[in-house]
């Protein structure tokens, strides 16, 4: 499209869409433009800054959330598309009293993080991964986290944390 056509589009006020979804068990609602990414919707519109944004084009996995129980990249979803769905972010993993989930506890036990920027994406990915593969082998663990980048740890302690989380949850993540 031409530059003038693009100017024309941005000059008109953007239409807003009502988005209602359940986030960590609570009903949430906001009016946003269609181009609002789910990652920005969670962070900016709902103030849930636990979901981190790394590459913002689907490569790093830091923004992974659970959409109706399945891990997805929140930076690759429009918030309007997620209307009506059930989202779990890293804020929703611990018990209401603050007790860490098995995956979170395992990350602490195994020193599975350093700077922590990528950690929310690992925690959500592994939480869902252990539901599908409750007793992972080391190779299963590697494959489970293959879509998430961590620049600090070298992954070894994260793999250890996957195996430890499986032990801790004893087949019931």
């Amino acid at each position: 499209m031409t530059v003038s056509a693009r100017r024309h589009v941005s000059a008109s006020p953007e239409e807003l869409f009502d988005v209602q979804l359940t986030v960590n068990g609570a009903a949430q609602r906001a009016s946003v433009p269609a181009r609002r990414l789910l990652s920005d919707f969670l962070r900016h519109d709902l103030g849930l800054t636990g979901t981190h944004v790394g590459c913002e084009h689907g490569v790093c996995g830091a923004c992974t959330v659970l959409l109706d129980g399945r891990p997805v990249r929140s930076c690759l979803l429009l918030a309007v598309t997620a209307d009506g769905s059930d989202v779990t972010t890293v804020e929703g993993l611990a018990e209401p009293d603050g007790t860490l989930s098995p995956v979170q506890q395992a990350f602490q036990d195994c020193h599975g993080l350093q700077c922590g920027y990528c950690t929310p994406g690992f925690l959500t990915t592994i939480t869902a991964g252990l539901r599908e593969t409750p007793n992972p082998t080391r190779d299963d663990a590697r494959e489970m986290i293959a879509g998430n980048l961590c620049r600090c740890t070298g992954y070894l302690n994260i793999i250890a944390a996957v195996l430890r989380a499986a032990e801790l949850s004893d087949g019931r993540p």
Partner: protein
Amino acid sequence: MKPPPFGYSRPESLDEALRLLAESGSDAKVLAGGQSLVPLLSMRLAAPPQLIDINRLSELAYVRTDENTVHVGALARQADVEHDARAAGVQPLLRQALRLVAHPTIRNRGTVVGSLAHADPASELTAVLAVLGGAVRLASARGDRTVPADQFFVGPLSTSAADDELVVEASFPGRPPGTGSTFVEISRRHGDYAICGVAVCVTVDEDGVLQAGRAALISVGPTPVVVELGDVVAGINPGGDLSDVHDAVWAAVSPEADIHASAEYRRKLAGVLAVRAVREAAQRAAA
């Protein structure tokens, strides 16, 4: 890294989606899984004036398997097809290839039909459709038509679908008895775009001797490159000398260089991977 503004509509039925497509013509882009489209928007490599979001068309979220064919609707996620036991029974190549498509997290959202409609030269699924001789069904307000794979992919990121047409279904022929398939590829990291990949189907007789074969290669041409291997594999023991397979595939492709690999390396890889794939597919056919 934010998408530019665009008009947005979210049809509730196929008829409404087709009407919207007919009205917007080339201004509209269809949003299904969005695993290719959303990053293109965010990186501002694409700026379609209008997005038509088909995620409400649950009527298209199906994987239907009959004796001879796997039918995949436009809203079936890649993970749904990958985990569908009946689909894997009728056509094992689908699952074999889907495991190489990005990562599970992406496959939870991405759709099989969306990958075909996007027609990336590195897309595994284009080669699956091509090697199996599958087809897509296109719908528009004007009517439906079925287009075979060899007429659907016309260039990098382009298909023969018209602006007002929606790809509503892909159909993948099932595995005939005595045949085996596999998908092998080389990429820098698991889940990355392949530097070269090859889907192969072969037929063997009861002694395990090759009778027929066909390959489709990705990342070595603008569209999946189909190579008929019937003449070069007929009567050959898959454990023996397959240098004719290598040579036939090597001669059939003319890849381009990029930052990941030279053209010469890609071409070499095509031949080597094809041999590897034929051996593996033959083992599966005999099993």
